[in-house]
């Protein structure tokens, strides 16, 4: 299942992927063993370099970010019923013990996106690939959230909101057209659905005065509904167009109602009484029996993020397979 990761320049896309990789490494090697992951060699090369750098306290460099256009992971979730089988049966391949989900993040250049937004035509293969995504993860950079309307950060956020809204509409349009095409070919399939995910990146940089102005407290709630309300309270202010187009998907025939919200932060070193010079350094955790020397980041949020895809993985691959089957049927009919 392809997943698109959208983010503004310097919004923390590579850091997000690096931390996701770190979370996968830790979570995938836990005692519970109901989650596994795999990365193709090209992605692994990049991600392990990012991971090494983070373990050394460094944020990913700009050069590293440009090395690859698609970063992919395969998430494997142990099927519930398989988990109850005896160990030796569970190990057999014919049981298909894991539901898998292909998580791909595309690094599309700003020019490609702008060309697509200007023309509405997805001429580049990467953009076409991007539009096939079933999960759309949107990074919203909290360091750009400000209530000062005359600042560049405020205007940047307004522009970013417009760009994301347009991309969301293009995802909807593409899915709707595909659905109509299948329907016209006599293939009956469920109405299209996209799973939006919002990640509030650099959450630790969200300013207190912004929270106070919006009547929000600093901590992100744990309860699912409260998380949603908290995140939407921020998004309604800073990316209202994107939120309205997600809601509006339903009237356009593409449901995007199952949005989920996560936050991401990574602690950085601060020198008391002095401003840091150059790129700040990542704080690392102390060594303990369960591990150590890891970046000090919102690990629980990343685990929740991984777990969010468990239900989707159990369900979506079948839908994707069905869609592929339908497409094959349609091709046979048209031939």
């Amino acid at each position, binding site marked *: 299942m392809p997943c698109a990761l959208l983010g503004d320049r310097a919004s923390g896309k590579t850091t997000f992927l690096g931390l996701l990789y770190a979370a996968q490494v830790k979570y995938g090697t836990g005692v519970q063993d109901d989650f596994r992951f795999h990365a193709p060699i090209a992605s692994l090369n990049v991600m392990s370099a990012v991971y090494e750098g983070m373990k050394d306290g460094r944020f990913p460099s700009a050069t590293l970010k440009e090395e690859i256009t698609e970063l992919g992971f395969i998430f494997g979730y142990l099927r519930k019923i398989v988990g109850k089988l005896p160990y030796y049966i569970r190990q057999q391949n014919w049981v298909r013990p894991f539901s898998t989900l292909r998580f791909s993040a595309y690094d599309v250049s700003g020019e490609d996106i702008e060309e697509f*937004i*200007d023309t*509405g035509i997805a001429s580049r293969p990467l953009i076409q690939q991007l539009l096939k995504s079933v999960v759309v993860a949107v990074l919203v950079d909290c360091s750009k959230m400000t209530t000062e*309307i*005359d600042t560049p950060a*405020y*205007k940047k956020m*307004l*522009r970013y*909101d*417009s760009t994301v*809204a*347009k991309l969301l*509409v*293009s995802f*909807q*349009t593409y899915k709707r057209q595909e659905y109509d095409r299948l329907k016209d070919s006599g293939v009956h399939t469920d109405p299209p659905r996209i799973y939006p995910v919002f990640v509030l990146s650099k959450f630790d940089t969200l300013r207190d005065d912004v929270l106070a102005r*919006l*009547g*929000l407290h600093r901590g992100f709630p744990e309860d699912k509904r409260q998380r949603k309300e908290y995140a*939407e*309270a*921020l998004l*309604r*202010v800073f990316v*209202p*167009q994107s*939120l*309205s*187009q997600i*809601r*509006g*998907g*339903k*009237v*356009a*025939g593409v*449901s995007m*109602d199952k949005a989920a919200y996560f936050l991401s932060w990574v602690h950085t070193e601060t020198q008391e009484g002095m401003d840091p010079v150059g790129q700040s350094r990542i704080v690392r955790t102390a060594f303990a029996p369960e591990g150590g020397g890891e970046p000090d980041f919102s690990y629980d949020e990343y685990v929740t993020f991984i777990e969010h895809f468990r239900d989707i993985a159990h369900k979506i691959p079948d839908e994707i397979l069905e869609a592929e089957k339908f497409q094959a049927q349609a091709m046979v009919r048209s031939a």
Partner: protein
Amino acid sequence: MPRIVIVGDRNSGKTTFLGLLYTAQVKSGSDKADDFRFHAAFESLDEISGVFQRLMSGSFPDSATKEGIREITFRLGYRRPGRGIFSRQRSQGWASDSSVAFHLIVLKTFEDDVARHREGSSIADASLRDAIGSDAMVIIVDARKLVAVDDDSEPKPLAKYDAAVESLLTAVQHSRAHAERAVLHPIFVFSKFDRVDADTLRRANLESAPPAVRKKGPRAAFAKALLDPNLPKTMAKVRARERGGLEFAPPSYFFSWVRTDETVSGRAEKVRLRRSGAVAWEPDYSSDEYLAFLECLWDLAAHTTE
């Protein structure tokens, strides 16, 4: 898809009107609990979100933005009543078959096209073709130009515009004399109503603000008191009952304003932003009027698809 043309004098606020209409939709359709949702077509979003960006940063649309705005397509959906508290049923209230798409077309200039048409030219220009095929016409009336006309000796700033709109309506009427769908909904929008001359209102025995949106009768009376002396030809045209051919539906009236802040001399005025709901903010504008306008479009769709 109902087609709605928007006509207005130069600098009467056509682009700002569309921008505020989009703002009203964004602000009303971004909460899951809202009973309203909308979807903008990709081609429309590029231009209209540019207007939104400007309004949300306190600026009015500039000439480049105005130039880019020509056609906007929105799809509106209101939650179907009587779906109860069951979430599955509630979500079905948003089915795409229960929503309606609207095509809004801004007519930049139409006076020359109408004149050519009046002189007998059989080739209708694009703007005139848009007007001829429309289901509704939004007539923007710049409230700054409204006067209380007691006698004919006083200058009427809207006289030329009145004649142009009347001619346009006549051209549409002639072109659709034998058309099957022969009802046009006139919608009058008073733009910049916060700038209306207080003396004009006083001389017309009107309050400083129009009656609330739900009071349709008093609002119509309020609007007519201003339109009859300022757009007499247009008003006569929409009231006239012709035998056969195109009919005009009873007009609807809306009042648009957006508050501004003073700036240092020589700089463009700024749109004032206000707190909206618990946590958001928006331009300080007549949001109730815009929401009522959207409902009016919804009703119009019900009539045009019957």
